[in-house]
């Protein structure tokens, strides 16, 4: 294989697919933007399922002693609601943004390992399908998303699906984490130092390090659970001296970083949007970045605050109370920095801005109720009640989801070249805010009034006040459902016929807006050279003699290409010389092999496991020996001196 004539003339099973349009092009794609889009639409599907499950929950609890569904079904539904929203919605929603934005924001043409990236997506999709197939195969897991042993060991809990399904999703997250860490560390545009990185990149880096170190822990916990349930091991079985508390430690050693895995990307998104629509730089960039890193770091040291009522002693309770209170400090720093980013600005209330402000406001509530949990003696009253349910929905719905939706509105023009309807966007925001607070606000009260979580009916003995709050919550879900439909309609209508956005609809600050909208598959005709934080903004504005920023006339900045020139003035770069990773079947083929392995492990069914293992190994070999169209990845790429630096992405 040489640089000049690719080997694509010989077609064989190992030839790489070449379709650029249609179904094949999507299932074989290694383009980070397409994978990001696939993540997003898969998330939408699972969000619909998880939302439907929450509808069942709230319908059952709308009034006391209802029996719309049996306790058996209810327990499956609330378990799957938790699993879906955590592992199949919020986490991969973040991954959708990582995929689409990280290369664009750091001035790269793709991620470090494009095929591994496709692999991560397929593992996510198949993990989700595997989990949901349990509904058809004897019932979904019903041991709650925390999977506490020994209840999870009981066959009636169907938790083998949980142990194996989450394992698949964990493989997806871990490989994605390696990929994104290498991408961010090693593929930044020239001049893009750490302290010039967009805040979303900072938060992505922290998040992926959290994933990197948290996923192996849950992998071990799940292996132990699976060995206990399927092969009769004794890790958590009290009968032979096993300790059920070990599960709780391992689960929350993963589970608390997981909380920050879900919220940090959202914080990154908000840190991008607020400056743009305030027309000011992020207030205290360094403090926000380091607070994010601190949250990630301390986030590993607070896990036992989920176990304050468990079998742990007063010393551990005290120590973890202190560390938990401590983590409120960096979180507070961030909130004040966001508020002061708006301070003195000229705020434009576009839909992404509304959702971002909503995030800061709602997340503050979740943060404050979080601090109250650290008051251990009273935590014993709040724990496992609807007060906790309210708290984590304020963090994950009012926090993470608000920001992720803000991100959808904000980067929609980047992805499609069109704008979403602002009018519908505003309707969506206000109904979303109302529905959200109506649903989860009353839960604070019903929890403090003694309503425990995970109850298949609302006991009448809790009293009329609790019933009233539950009815309000259930009404809130109706509002949320309507609001979600508005969003969905807006999304589809705007994809089809949204107004053209142009390359820079928001007067943005970061370099993803230097590329066209939607970006060409190689992202940048020429890799931008970065000399400032908020590089794109600095290319558009310069300071006058008085230090006041003024717009630079198009093409006027002496040492910079302007936005328009960068986006359109491709000159001699028409993309033909840019080598991009080729599509590949093998990530998909390899991932398919995990289906027989996973179903085989349920039984266990040895031949099915064997079939799957052989399949995976074949897929792996196909992967490593498939030809690379423009020369093997170890060969120097020299034929085009102006060729991209980042074209060296391993294939």
């Amino acid at each position, binding site marked *: 294989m040489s640089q000049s004539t690719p080997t694509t003339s010989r077609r064989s099973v190992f030839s790489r697919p070449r379709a650029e349009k249609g179904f094949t092009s999507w299932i074989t794609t290694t383009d980070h933007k397409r994978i990001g889009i696939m993540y997003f639409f898969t998330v939408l599907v699972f969000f619909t399922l998880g939302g439907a499950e929450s509808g069942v929950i709230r319908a059952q609890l709308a009034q006391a002693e209802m029996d719309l569904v049996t306790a058996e079904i209810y327990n499956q539904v609330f378990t799957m609601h938790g699993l879906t929203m955590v592992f199949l919605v919020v986490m991969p929603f973040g991954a959708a943004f990582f995929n689409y934005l990280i290369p664009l924001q750091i001035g790269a043409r793709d991620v470090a390992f494009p095929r591994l990236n496709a692999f991560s997506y397929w593992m996510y999709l198949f993990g989700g399908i595997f989990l949901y197939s349990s509904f058809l195969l004897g019932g979904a897991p019903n041991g709650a998303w925390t999977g506490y042993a020994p209840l999870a060991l009981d066959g009636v809990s169907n938790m083998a699906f949980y142990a194996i399904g989450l394992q698949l999703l964990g493989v997806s997250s871990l490989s994605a984490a*390696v990929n994104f860490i290498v991408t961010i560390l090693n593929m930044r545009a020239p001049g893009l130092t750490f302290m010039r990185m967009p805040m979303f990149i900072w938060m992505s880096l922290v998040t992926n390090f959290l994933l990197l170190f948290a*996923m192996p822990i849950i992998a071990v916990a799940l292996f132990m659970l699976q*060995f206990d349930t399927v092969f009769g091991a*004794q890790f958590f079985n009290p009968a032979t001296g096993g300790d059920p508390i070990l599960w709780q430690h391992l689960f929350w050693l993963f589970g608390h970083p997981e909380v920050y895995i879900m919220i940090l990307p959202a914080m990154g998104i908000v840190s991008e949007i607020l400056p743009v629509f305030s027309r000011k730089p992020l207030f205290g960039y360094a403090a926000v970045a380091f607070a994010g890193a601190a949250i990630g770091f301390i986030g590993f040291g607070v896990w036992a605050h989920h176990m304050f009522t468990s079998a742990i002693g007063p010393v551990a309770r005290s120590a973890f109370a202190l560390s938990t209170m401590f983590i409120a400090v960096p979180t507070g720093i961030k909130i004040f920095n966001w508020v002061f980013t708006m301070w003195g600005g000229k705020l434009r209330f576009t839909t992404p801005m509304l959702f971002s402000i909503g995030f800061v406001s709602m997340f503050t509530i979740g943060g404050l109720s979080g601090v109250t949990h650290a008051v251990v003696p009273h935590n014993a009253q709040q724990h496992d009640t609807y007060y906790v349910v309210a708290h984590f929905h304020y963090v994950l719905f009012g926090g993470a989801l608000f920001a992720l939706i803000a991100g959808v509105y904000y980067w929609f023009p980047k992805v499609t070249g069109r704008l979403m309807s602002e009018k519908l966007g505003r309707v969506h925001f206000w109904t979303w805010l109302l529905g959200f607070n109506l649903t989860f606000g009353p839960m604070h009260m019903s929890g403090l009034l003694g309503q425990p979580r995970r109850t298949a009916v609302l006991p009448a003995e809790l009293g009329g006040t609790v019933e009233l709050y539950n009815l309000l919550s259930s009404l809130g879900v109706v509002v949320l459902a309507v609001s979600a439909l508005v969003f969905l309609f807006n999304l589809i209508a705007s994809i089809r016929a949204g107004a053209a956005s142009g390359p820079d609809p928001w007067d943005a600050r970061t370099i993803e807006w230097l590329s066209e909208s939607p970006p060409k598959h190689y992202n940048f005709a020429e890799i931008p050279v970065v000399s400032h934080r908020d590089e794109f903004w600095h290319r558009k504005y310069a300071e006058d003699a008085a230090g006041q920023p003024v717009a630079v006339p198009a093409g006027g900045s002496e040492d910079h290409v302007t936005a328009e020139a960068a986006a359109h003035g491709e000159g001699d770069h028409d993309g033909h010389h840019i080598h991009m990773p080729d599509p590949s079947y093998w990530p998909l083929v390899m991932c398919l092999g995990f289906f027989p392995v996973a179903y085989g492990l349920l039984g266990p069914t040895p031949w099915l496991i064997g079939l799957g293992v052989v399949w995976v190994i074949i897929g792996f070999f196909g992967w490593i020996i498939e030809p690379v169209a423009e020369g093997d990845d170890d060969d*120097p790429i020299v034929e085009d001196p102006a060729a991209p630096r980042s074209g060296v992405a391993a294939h």
Partner: protein
Amino acid sequence: MTAGVHETTLGLDHRKLGMWVFLGSEFLFFGAFVSAYILYLDTTAGGPGVEIFDIPFTSISSFVLLMSSLTMVLAHNAHTRRDMRRMRMWILATAGQGAVFLGGQIFEFTVFYKEGLNLTQSPFASGFFVLTGFHGLHVFVGILLLLSLYSLTLTGKVKPDQDLKTEMIGLYWHFVDIIWVIIFTVVYLIPDLLMEA
């Protein structure tokens, strides 16, 4: 070797950086199993405990695995010198020693089973078998990687100037070895001493 390396931000190869990132996370994986093992050291439910270990036997297989790191690094060294004949020889030697180690582990497991220590016996037994079993799985994957590397050099798919591929597999192999350095001490030697004391 790779022109591309000089063009990355840190001047590092993506794949090697990726391998190190992954290896860093593996400590969290094995660490959890080791912790469970330590926690359940005395939890034998009336079955056999650490006294069942045959330290001399395990020492020999540990030594074989340790020495496979030497042949691995020699294979890499030969590859960097473009000496593919030696490189293949050392690769085979490494895989062979890995196989000897695995064989020893299978033998050990069989003996333990016969003496009444099996996975379902006690938390101690589960901790021991699953920890060393997952290590064995890592060795097995390493052997597969070595054998495919070997065959790919034969077919010319891995070329003399691609010593990075050997280095990557070497990193993985050495990592599996240093994990065993820890396991050998923490799982076998120290508990054995504690039991005598």
